[in-house]
């Protein structure tokens, strides 16, 4: 299986990532892109991570997806640093012979990424104030739904 994992400050090219997942034998590519929501008053999100553990944790999540569905390829790209409203945060994609596996794997990847990969978000508001984002129980519930 092709496994592509990247943590970067620069933006990603979603079209190029989708094309990369169009692998021999593929019947479909499922994907999800997370973007910074423009909720009034937000100036930017600051994303930080735990270098080393991030790659390990994301590899583990991708391998779990590959164990559950017959995947040909799997891509997880997560940005870090200061991201303005509307900017891309994360790309997950999965490629398989059939759409069910591709779509379900993409959902699994983003749900587990939100609960098992060491990233943290801090909100910077136009007022100058700043606050760390608290974890959502709904995210834990979504991830556990895959058990």
């Amino acid at each position, binding site marked *: 299986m092709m496994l592509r994992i990247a943590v970067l400050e620069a933006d990603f090219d979603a079209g190029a990532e989708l094309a990369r997942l169009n692998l021999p034998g593929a019947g479909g590519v499922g994907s999800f892109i*997370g973007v910074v929501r423009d909720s009034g008053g937000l100036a930017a999100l600051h*994303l*930080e*991570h*735990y270098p*080393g*553990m991030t790659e*390990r*944790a994301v590899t583990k999540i991708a391998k779990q997806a590959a164990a559950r569905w017959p995947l040909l390829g799997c891509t997880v790209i*997560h940005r870090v640093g200061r991201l303005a409203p509307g900017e891309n*945060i*994360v790309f997950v994609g999965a490629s398989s012979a059939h759409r069910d596996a591709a779509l379900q794997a993409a959902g699994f990847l*983003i749900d587990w*990424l*939100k*609960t*098992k*990969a*060491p*990233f*943290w*978000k*801090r909100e910077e508001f136009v007022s100058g104030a700043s606050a*760390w*984002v*608290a*974890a*959502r129980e709904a*995210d834990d519930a979504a991830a556990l739904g895959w058990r």
Partner: protein
Amino acid sequence: MRVLYFAWLREKIGVAEENIEFPPQVKNVAALIDWLRARGPGYAAAFAEQKLVRCAVDQEFAGPETAIAGAVEIAFFPPVTGG
């Protein structure tokens, strides 16, 4: 041992990482947290609400009972909020 702090734990403690030698009776994550809390007000504030603190031992998620003997790197951080 290398100890890392992320997000608001780093802000409260005031450093991102440090090398710590702790006494041999500090055998697991829970004991290490108790020992760290006594180091100063920043540590006490960071670990005040332990249900908001997560830990990784050698880059794997760890619980309070996880042994730390022989570990190279221990990290403390809030529940993750990526994606």
